[in-house]
Structures are given as C-alpha cells and as structure tokens.
C-alpha cells in the first residue's frame, strides 16, 4: 500500500462502535491518529466529516471520510491487505453481514430499552427482547469465535455483549445476560476479551462501570 497515507479515527473512548473500527485497523496493522471527541461538544471536524449523523466513529483516510462502524470495518478490510476480517467466500460473507446486522438491529436497541427507557413496561419488554436475541446468538455460535478460529466481523460487532452488556447489567441491576443461560457466549466472551488486540483497545472496566452506575443513580435521583 502507498506509504503516503494519513489515517485518522474520530471516536469516544467508551463507544463499542468506535472499538470496532479500532480493532479492525489494529488487525490490519494500520497506523492511525486517534482523535477523542466529546459528544456534548462536537468538534468542527466531526460535524464536517459526518454531517448526516454527527456521530463517531468516523474514519478519515487521506482526507476522505467513512462513517458508520460496520461500513468502516468493511472498508478497512477492503482498503488494506493482511488479516481477513470478512470471509472470502460470498455465502459466508453474507452470513457475517447478516449476523452483524442482527446484533445492531436486535441486541443494541433491546439492551438500551431495557436500561434507559423511562417506562417500566418498555424496560421489561426490552429485557425480554434482549434475552431472545442473545439466545439466538447462543444457538448460532459454533466454534471458538463467530468467525471460526480467529475473530472477524461478527465478533467485532458482538463485542458489546462480552464487555459492555455485563457492565450495564451490573450497574443497573438488570436481568439480560448470564453465563449459565448462555454458556457458549460466556466462553466466547472470555476468549475475545483476552484476544491481544481487543484487550489493548478496551477502556478500563471499572471506569465504564462507574459511569453506568452514575447514570442509573442520576435517573433514580431525578424521580
């Protein structure tokens, strides 16, 4: 690849979506400059490079922006050689895309609803939906990782379940996930959290837990 490349990643330190992009770049051995954004005070650059959604992550490659975490991961896979993040076979690629989309469409919204919806009935509904989605993933998981022996697109997408979900659960006293109910996901969680690249990008666990706890406290306090 050309050596005159400038790669910049706009992110926030605790975002699971940003971590997808970071892990993808590190798996490919790409050197990049990281810019920490404040979501309550978005930089002019962020608004310029992602005017449509104004969100992180944004990847800037030779001054050209790529937005949306899964789009970024596929872009990184195609723009740089080396580690294959998606499978090469079209059918398996389709499966990888399907399951990443499933995680974004079914796991995240349900978990957010379960944690943050102001209505208790909606929170219960969210918890039920989250558990259903997790069971489907539990049933689907066959090998060491969703991608087989090495991590791939779906593992990056599902990382939320291994790291953030248990923390939000602990902080909020939720009932979404348990190692007993989902033994394969539990095992996968251990494997992926100990993956050298993943380990290197995750924020400190206590940090994230404290932030979630504060958020839940603020909600109870304002009631």
């Amino acid at each position, binding site marked *: 690849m050309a050596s005159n490349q400038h790669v910049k990643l706009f992110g926030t330190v605790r975002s699971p979506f940003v971590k997808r992009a970071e892990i993808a770049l590190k798996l490919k051995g790409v050197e990049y400059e990281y810019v920490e954004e404040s979501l309550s005070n978005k930089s002019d650059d962020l608004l310029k490079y992602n005017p449509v959604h104004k969100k992180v992550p944004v990847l800037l490659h030779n001054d*050209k922006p790529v937005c949306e975490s899964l789009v970024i991961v*596929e872009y990184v896979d195609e723009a740089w050689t080396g580690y294959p993040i998606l499978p090469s076979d079209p059918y398996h690629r*389709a499966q990888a895309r399907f399951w990443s989309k499933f995680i974004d469409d079914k796991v995240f919204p349900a978990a957010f609803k379960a944690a943050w919806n102001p209505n208790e009935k909606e929170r219960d509904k969210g918890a039920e939906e989250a558990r259903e989605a997790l069971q489907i993933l539990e049933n689907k998981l066959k090998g060491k990782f969703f991608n087989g022996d090495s991590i791939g697109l779906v593992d990056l997408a599902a990382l939320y379940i291994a790291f953030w979900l248990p923390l939000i659960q602990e902080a909020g006293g939720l009932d979404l996930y348990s190692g007993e109910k989902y033994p394969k996901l539990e095992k996968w969680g251990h494997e992926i959290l100990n993956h050298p690249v993943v380990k290197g990008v995750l924020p400190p666990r206590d940090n994230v837990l404290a932030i979630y706890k504060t958020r839940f406290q603020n909600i109870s306090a304002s009631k």
Partner: protein
Amino acid sequence: MATQEVVLLDSRCSMFAMRARIALAEKGIEYEGKEQNLADKGPELLQMNPIHKKVPVLVHNGKPICESLIIVQYIDEVWKDQGNPLLPSDPYDRAQARFWADFVDKKVADASSKVWTKKGEELEAGKKDFIAALKQLEEVLGDKPYFGGEVFGYVDLVLIPFYSWFYAYETCGSFKTEEHCPKFIEWAKRCMQRETVAKSLPDPKEVYEIVLILRKRFGVD
C-alpha cells in the same frame, strides 16, 4: 457455470424484494420467483428465514441468504463476471454506496411507512422526515444522472423501489413529492426507463390497492 438453482422468495409489492428482483435482472440470472403470502407465511419462508420470517430470501443451491442489501451484495459477488456490476470497484466508493444504502434504510423506509400507516400529527411528522430524507438524497445526487455516477448502481437500485409506493404515500398523505423534490422525481423517472427496473416494479396503482387493504387491516381507515 454449472447448473445453478436460484429461487427468490418474493412479494410483488415489497420494496425490499424489488431490490433483489432488479439485482437478478441486472445480472441476467434466471430464477424461480415464489410469491409469498405474508398474511399467512408458508413453511418454506419460515424454514429459510426463521429469524425474521420476511421477504426477500434468495435461495441459491438450497442455501438461504436473507436481508435485501445483503442479498444484492451477494448477487454482485457471486456473479461478478456476469451482467452489470452493482457496487463500484473502488473501496472508498463502495463505502460511500454502503453508507447511503444504510441511510435509505434508516431514514427513507421508516419515515415513508409512517406516511401510510399513521394519521394526524404522526402522519405530518412522517411526511416531514420523508421529504427531508429525499432532499438530503437530492443533495448527494447533485448533477449526476445516477447515484452511481454515469451508470445505474447500488444506491439507485436500493432506492428506486420506494418510487412504486409514491402514489400511495401521496394519496394517503395528501402531498406531491414533485413539489418538494423535483430533482428526485427526475432521477426516479430516469431509472424507470431502465428495463430491469421497469419490469421489477409493480404498477403504483396496484401498490395503492394493497395499501388500502392493509390500512383497513391495521385499523388506520
């Protein structure tokens, strides 16, 4: 290529299924289309798409592929040496195409469904969001004939099926898209001149009849 079995679990008026139909036509792939009864889903659909139970489902040599955008990309990759390319070849252009396809699914699909399923304030909000999304897309289109540039491409394919529903949206919502987004309508008419698109989209009046039935069933009318 060895004999292939290509089946599409289809539904005439589904804009998502239309995407698959256009893609197959663009590649000149022969397939068996099986119209599904979405009010009474058959065993084949439930077996091939147990997670979402939706159309379209592409079944290629017995193996199912679900979700319209994923199906279109699959078709483009499997039949890459045949017919017209659907996604651009440059990784950056591909990323942009994927971004805007995602935008269509996030912004156009949601807002447009409100326009025919809601009333009062919710309908007005849906109309506003729908027009805003189309205006954003007009900006992206700019002076190009297609979102793909000079040639019909992925984003065009992903978006044009909604056009077959415009008559229904406009009638239910009492508005004319052309008054707000004339460039968009110009682009849509250009796409409709393409044979693969024209033969893959149902007549808007046919869609409207279905919409009326669904509105009654959902208790909107």
